[in-house]
């Protein structure tokens, strides 16, 4: 009975509360996804600058290859973004439902990566790669 008595005021505030929490959840999901996209694109750009690591290793050995990667500023900033993404993901998962945040972040990151790879890395994202991106995004949502 007490629950029933409490329900009218709860119902009155529910839409506002739901909208605010949905906004907060999607803000967190977008923030985590953008961090992942920036991180992965910068790591990819850094590794393109470093060049084929097999060739770098053949020329200057394993320590030289590791040095070439770790002294590349673009790579290091990208790796820091990924580290930040890890902690932001923990935060996002604590404030949203795993069943929403997990697939949403996965799908947004894959699609965002393809768009960013085309415009920032100038990769040739042909129809096969677009199709693969959409399949991966939908597949990740179905599998989580």
């Amino acid at each position, binding site marked *: 009975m007490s629950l029933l008595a409490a329900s009218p005021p709860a119902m009155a505030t529910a839409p506002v509360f739901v909208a605010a929490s949905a906004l907060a959840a999607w803000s967190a999901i977008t923030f985590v996804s953008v961090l992942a996209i920036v991180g*992965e*694109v910068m*790591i*990819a*750009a850094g*590794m*393109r*600058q*470093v*060049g*084929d*690591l*097999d060739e*770098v290793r053949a020329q200057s050995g394993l320590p030289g290859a590791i040095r070439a*990667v770790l002294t*590349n500023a673009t*790579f290091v900033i990208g790796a820091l973004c990924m580290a930040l993404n890890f902690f932001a993901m923990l935060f996002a998962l604590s404030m949203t439902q795993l069943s929403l945040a997990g697939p949403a972040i996965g799908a947004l990151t*894959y699609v965002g*990566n*393809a768009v960013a*790879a*085309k415009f920032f*890395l*100038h*990769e*040739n*994202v*042909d129809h*096969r*790669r677009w*199709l*693969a*991106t959409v*399949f*991966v995004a*939908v*597949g*990740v*949502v*179905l*599998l*989580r």
Partner: protein
Amino acid sequence: MKHTLKPSQYAVLLSVIITAPAGDALLARGMRQVGEVDLHHLGLLWHALFNPYVDGGILLLMGFFAAYTVALSWADLTFVMPATASSYVVIALLGHFLLHETLSPSRWAGVLLIVCAVGFVAGGPSRTEHPALDAMDSGAAL
């Protein structure tokens, strides 16, 4: 340029696919033994470092990041992406065949979609040929 992959490069992609889910699984098992970590029990994180499953998980995830980095040195991000997504397929299939978990039709559909995505991308070139990108490859754009 780099259109086809060498066997060693396929091995790197295979490492990307396998090390991520294996590392996650070990880390999850170890953290279940350690207990729930929150802001009031951050000391447990230090305790977690002495758990062999957590250590194995961290090592495998470091291996994943190394393999992923190596792959991006000779392949496009959009080429490597379906390989990283294949980790979800590995987790689902391991759960089904080793732990006898039932996979719902929608999860089977997810497996199929990601496998198709790998097929689409694997059939094409691994690296984009582009004059500006070739300059980056040679280090001129550093």
